[in-house]
């Protein structure tokens, strides 16, 4: 969606079609000190999706493909409020220690470095759950170093409805339709939403990375403040499929992180300038974000 795609990548693609050739090439890369990577979430809708993943970055040519898990860290989440004087007041009684757990949804070989509220297994009804309007403090202690981040949960922006339309037939001959989401953007400027969906192909998967995701063209309400929004995502769903549609209201900080993540993930081509993911975690040699998602949900059977 960014302008690069329009005016840079496509002309480049045309040039490549015309004349470009490609060869393997040895790129000699020096290594850097491993960096702690924090992937933390707090939301008000899915308790199992409130988790923190800790890992360390790798040398570029390291044989492992997944980052090295960071085990045995002390990870806590505390609920609190922002006072009138812009100071946080944390409720010590609400502090929850997240642990590496044998959550069945996670494949056995990949459970290290993933921290959950242990009550998800022992007492799911009382497991950690975000409350819109509250603030959450993430604290991490590992290798004698401390890290922290604060995530507010904004008031939920309700979805009025979701409808299906914009039909097409894919190359396998399946009839598909797209979802349009209808909601009213709050009158205050600076509101940002991210969108997720669960459908046939990912219904039994687990984790934010396994959900379908998309972001609006411009991502913010800078141009549509207070308007009634009817946004059609480009993803197609099979007719008859049930789609759970989630809209997450996030702070500008969280949006900026995920915006940089998307740019960094698609960062290639001859004219791209390297994009570093914006770090939202306090501490030394660390990157990542503690994302607060205020979710609203609507389900639809595609017709």
């Amino acid at each position, binding site marked *: *969606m*960014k*302008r690069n*795609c*329009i*005016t*840079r990548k*496509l*002309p480049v693609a*045309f040039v*490549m*079609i015309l004349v*470009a*050739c490609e*060869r*393997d090439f040895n*790129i000699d890369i020096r*290594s850097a000190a*491993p*960096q702690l990577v924090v*992937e933390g979430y707090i939301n008000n809708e899915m308790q199992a999706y409130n988790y923190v993943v800790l890992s*360390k*970055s790798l040398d*570029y040519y390291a044989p492992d*493909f*997944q*980052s090295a898990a960071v085990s045995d860290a002390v990870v806590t989440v505390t609920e609190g409020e922002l006072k009138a004087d812009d100071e946080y007041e944390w409720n010590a009684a609400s502090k929850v220690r997240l642990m590496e757990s044998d959550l069945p*949804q996670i*494949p056995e*070989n990949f459970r290290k470095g993933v921290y959950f509220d242990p009550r998800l297994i022992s007492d799911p009804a009382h497991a950690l759950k975000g409350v819109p309007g509250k603030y959450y403090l993430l604290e991490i202690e590992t290798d004698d170093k401390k890290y922290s981040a604060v995530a507010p949960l904004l008031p939920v922006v309700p979805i009025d409805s979701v409808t299906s*339309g914009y039909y097409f037939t894919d*190359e396998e001959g399946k009839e598909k339709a*797209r979802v*349009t989401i209808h909601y009213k953007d709050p009158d205050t400027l600076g509101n940002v939403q991210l969108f997720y969906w669960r459908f046939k192909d990912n219904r*039994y*998967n*687990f*984790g934010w*990375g*396994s959900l379908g995701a998309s972001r609006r*063209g411009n991502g913010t309400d800078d141009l549509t*403040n207070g308007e009634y*929004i009817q*946004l*059609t995502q*480009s993803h*197609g769903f099979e007719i008859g499929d049930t789609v759970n549609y989630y809209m997450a209201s996030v702070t*500008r900080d969280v949006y900026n992180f995920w915006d940089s*993540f998307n740019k*960094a993930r698609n960062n*290639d*081509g*001859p*004219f*791209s*300038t*390297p*994009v570093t*993911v914006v770090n939202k975690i306090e501490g030394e040699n660390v*990157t990542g974000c503690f994302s607060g998602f205020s979710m609203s949900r609507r389900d639809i059977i595609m017709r």
Partner: protein
Amino acid sequence: MTTVYMRSAIIFIFLCACINGFAQHYTLTIQVSDSLNIPVGNATLRINQKENKVDATGKLLLQFPAGKCTITASAVGYRSSTFTILLTADTVAHVVLERSENLLQHVTIVASRNVSRNQMSTQSIGIGQLKKLPVLLGEIDPLKTITLLPGIKSGGEASAGIYVRGGGPDQNLVLLDGIPVYNPNHLLGFFSVFNGEAVQSVEVIKGGMPAEYGGRLSSVIAVETREGSKDSLKASGGIGLISSRLSAEGPVVKGRSSFIVSARRTYIDQVGRLVAKKRIGDNGYYFYDINAKLSFDINPKNKLVFTFYTGKDDFSFVDMDNDGRDRIFNAVWGNNIAGLSWKQEINSKLKQELSAVYNGFTLDSRFGFNTTSILFTSGLRDYQLKNDWLYTPGNKLSIKWGLQYTWHRFKPGAGGVTSGVQQFKSQISDQYAREAAAYISGDWNIAPKWNIIAGIRYSYFNQVGPTERVIYNEEGVPTGEKERFGKGESIAKYHYPEPRVSMVRLLPHNSSIKLSYTRTIQYLHLATTSGATFPSDLWIPGSKLIQPGKAQQVAAGYFRDFNNSAYEMSVETYYKTMTNQVEFKPGAQLLLNQNLEGQMIFGSGRAYGIELFLQKKKGKLTGWIGYTLSRAERTFPELNNGKAFPYRYDRTHDLSIVANYPLSARWEISGVFVYGTGNALTIPVGRFTYNLGYHVIEQKPIFSNINQYDKVNDYRMPAYHRLDVSFVYTPRPLSTKRFKSSWNFGIYNVYNRYNPYFIYLDVDNDEQMIKGKKVFLFPVMPSVTWNFKF
């Protein structure tokens, strides 16, 4: 009393002698033109061993004592001519130079740098030479060719970005007959907008910039188009593999006025479809451009010249082969330029030129993807008035002065996105600015072997309304407030003096040393997210936040001719500093962003180096060797932890060897070899996975790989080198028939070097493989062009 009378008599006799001495000086006016009576504006006249440049109309006016004057007239692309006149009265001499290409002899590949001219860091190339040098796909390109000169670097293949002494591509004042050209490239810089059929010469000033030039920090690239024949109707053209060109010229009123119209059109898409129909599909690209020039001699002292250029690029890309996710992209962009000049010789000592110029650039692009469509437009328009004066009271001093005024209108990039029925429309108001400058410069022969040119330019820039601007807070969130400015209301104002000094000291053995100091100010910035230039890049004015760029450069050089001027060499060294350099933040969001200024970062730059140039101008074998050892770096507080880092186009070593040799009357061979240190790149030092999920059934993780970066531009691409060869075959060199033709056979990249266009790391999560890849554009590429004229 006797003593008093004696003294008076001696003084009287002395005064008489002096007056008599002065009275023996005569005015010598020399007019240089070619065989078609077209003035040769780049000619050099060596009169009694002292070199002088003619003005743009091919004229030179000097005073000499009575006696013999030996004059050698030479110009790039012409055969030199030597003659002697006996000066016994005011004299007008008309020198006719023959084009070297008409002589069917070897071409003297000459850059008009010489020992005595007080204009260092300047080189020019004529069309005769441009036509002989090997070029990609046989397409003559003045901008590509000048990158063979020391200190001038190309961004690489498929990039017309030109980097002069560490400056950026927006820091070159590219002029077409004195009119600024904002986007001098066709698609991705494969070609420049300058049609070889219309071009007369190209001159580059890298340092010691004369006071009449301004508005850019690094260089002046002046492309002059040729005037049409005043005698008879003529046509010329060429048919190449990817484009054809045609030019017609002739008199409007015989002997007094002329026209020339040149047009060029590519058929790269059609050729592509013939070669690889399946790969090209419905994609298409073409460009055309038309140059025209009309010159009219009102009388011997007044002349009108009208210059016109229009060009358009049309690019479309269609991708319909994946899961209903159609992508359709179309972009149309181009320049429109028109200028009218009145050149007047008020008397033998005073001349003036008054010009009115229009310059416009527009881009319209559309992108469709499934239910999303995006529109993006941008552009700018300039209206300019310019008045230049030249006063030459005698041989020792000449003074130039002038005024320039430009009205800018910027369309900074309006965009709209439609997603289903939802519309997002950015509302960036047009912006306006006034730019003006006054200059005065004196060229003074302070002693027989000393010349100094000292000048000052005072420039002024004022961004004005009407416009309105959305106010953003520090986090980049709009506050809901707008700042409005009425028509003509001042928004930001800047003005700076720009001193320019250069001097030359002639030394024994046909040698000299030259020094120069230049301060330049640039009020417009090119906003780009990459090192290459794209039509979508935005020219934006200085504003409250965006300060003008400033540069200072000192240069010193040693120049020498030897072997009876068969060889010319120079060594130049320079040091340049630049402030208020502008970049977008990495990952800046540009589309639909009404706060582009908030996406910018500001820094400084530094460049220094030494340039060596050795040229053989006479004999069968002609050519040059240019070598540059240099360093260019940038410093931005937000990048590289605030430490200086190499500029992307920092090129430690840059070598070019150009040679030309006539094999026979029919065959001539030319070769070009280039070598340059690879571009500086930022590459990752590590990676991590993020956005984890899990396939519960397949028992495997889902994740994205993200690169981890450290130092900026810390990696070097492999060195770039290439050899090109071309042969010009003239079937009937001695034919006296009107119709003449020649064939140009070229081989680009003779030894098939895979010079990387870019490199990347290919991470395959499924196969768990990481491989380095390099993409290269042009393997060995033959070309053939048939040129004709009648």
